[in-house]
């Protein structure tokens, strides 16, 4: 089963890491990803720009409404996501625990099974 792991954290904090903290965190995360990558189970891994760069389209009565945001009220923001092929939910939880340890500070991880996944054709 394919799972999406959605990573939430306080972006104010994450975007004020120093270069060294940033690099150390990335090194730990890459180490956590390595076994899955080698097993060919690791799909897209994405890190999102801050919510200030986001735009939201909300369905209105007539025209869809385009608004800046998401807004700042929530304590944690969606900062990135993984798509991974796991045998069981337990495996997905185990992996998320490793992510939680590799990332400093607080944060939460939403584990969502995928209905469908189409990789598309965008060159990277």
């Amino acid at each position, binding site marked *: 089963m394919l799972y999406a792991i959605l990573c939430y954290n306080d972006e104010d904090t994450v975007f004020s*890491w120093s270069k060294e903290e940033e690099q150390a965190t990335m090194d730990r995360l890459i180490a956590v990803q390595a076994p899955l990558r080698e097993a060919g189970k690791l799909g897209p891994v994405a890190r999102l720009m801050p919510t*200030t760069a986001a735009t939201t389209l909300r369905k209105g009565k007539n025209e869809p409404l385009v608004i*800046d945001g998401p807004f700042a009220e929530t304590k944690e923001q969606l900062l990135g996501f993984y798509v991974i092929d796991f045998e069981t939910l337990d495996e997905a939880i185990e992996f998320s625990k490793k992510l939680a340890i590799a990332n400093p*500070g607080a944060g939460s991880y939403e584990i969502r099974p995928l209905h469908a996944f189409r990789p598309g054709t965008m060159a990277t």
Partner: protein
Amino acid sequence: MTDLAWIDIAFTNARPQVLGALLRYFRNLDIAEEAFQEACLRALKTWPDKGPPRDPVAWLIFVGRNSGIDAVRKQSKTQGLPDEEVISDTGDAESDLAERLDGSNYRDDILRLLFICCHPDLPATQQIALALRVVSGLSVTQIARAFLVSESAMEQRITRAKARVAAAGVPFETPGAVERTERMALVSAMIYLIYNEGYSAGGPGREASAFADEAIRLGRLLLRLFPAEPEIMGLLALMLLQQSRNMARFDADGQIILLEDQDRSLWCRTLIDEALALLDKAIRHRRPGPYQLQAAIAALHSRAKRAQDTDWSEIDLLYQTLERLHPSPVVTLNRAVAVAKLKGPEEALALVESLADKLDGYFYFHGLRGGLLAQLGRSHEAHIAFDRAIALAHSPAEAAHIRHQLDRLSVTAPAIAK
């Protein structure tokens, strides 16, 4: 990262919100600052064991408020110390407070706090120092080192700024729409001042260059509070674009490398991408402003793969728009660079000369004028202009850059001399 480093970042990020709320409550900057300090001390005692609270900001406000009341009472000597247990046991009250502190509350508190620091009565250097001390929580030592003044001088400067702000009175009422816009413009200008202070000090290793990161952090904060303000998007985009070139701006000896000579592969793609995304969002609002226009100009440089691919005519147009919207001799001076690229040094020099009265004390004026004169082979005049620029340079790197141009002048001079 250790627990303590983590908590330190949490404090810095919570600071504007917490201090803003405490200021609203106590209406006195010194009491609010002390209360914040006290709340942080208590957090250091409890968070490492119990883990951070669900809402650190609400926790700090709650504890800070209690300890502030405590301090005020102690000063008036009418009441004894409240029980330590009462203040430490914050569980329920804190979540209650978090419910009541909604986004708009945070927003006005932070805006007020920033607004106080850029009070129009204060000269720019005091605005910057006060904001870095009060909003960002940098130590007096750090700020003093960056400004190259003694610690006691900086301490004095900040104390004087605080006294001046207190004497001028702080508007605590919730600002109306017009006032909010005015405050936001002042706050944006102050954040950009902080950025420039860091940027012009330049180079890694200089304490002041940390100001640039701090300004970007404040810009992001402001935009999260007002997510639909195109000028704040523009301001943040502008700072990100300038910051993206940080690694390419100096050579190994710390000498300035001009934009057109920079190794563009050293430009930070992540920052550029974020800035371009912000600029796209800003333009949709169709409310152009000075920051958006400056960011758009910076973006054109970022989009050019090589220096010779730069769209100078578009840059010239953007500068002309900026001149109409926000006339300033410095804007015209910058446009002269585009004019020089498009129409040659002669026309650019004419434009520059027209600014002589207004910009005589400005480093870049003499630097650019010298450069244009040198291109036209008027070495003697170029020499005088460069000498004047060196006298006005802000940093050794700036002076060295002009000296380098002077050296080139004396090398090429014999060939030009008739």
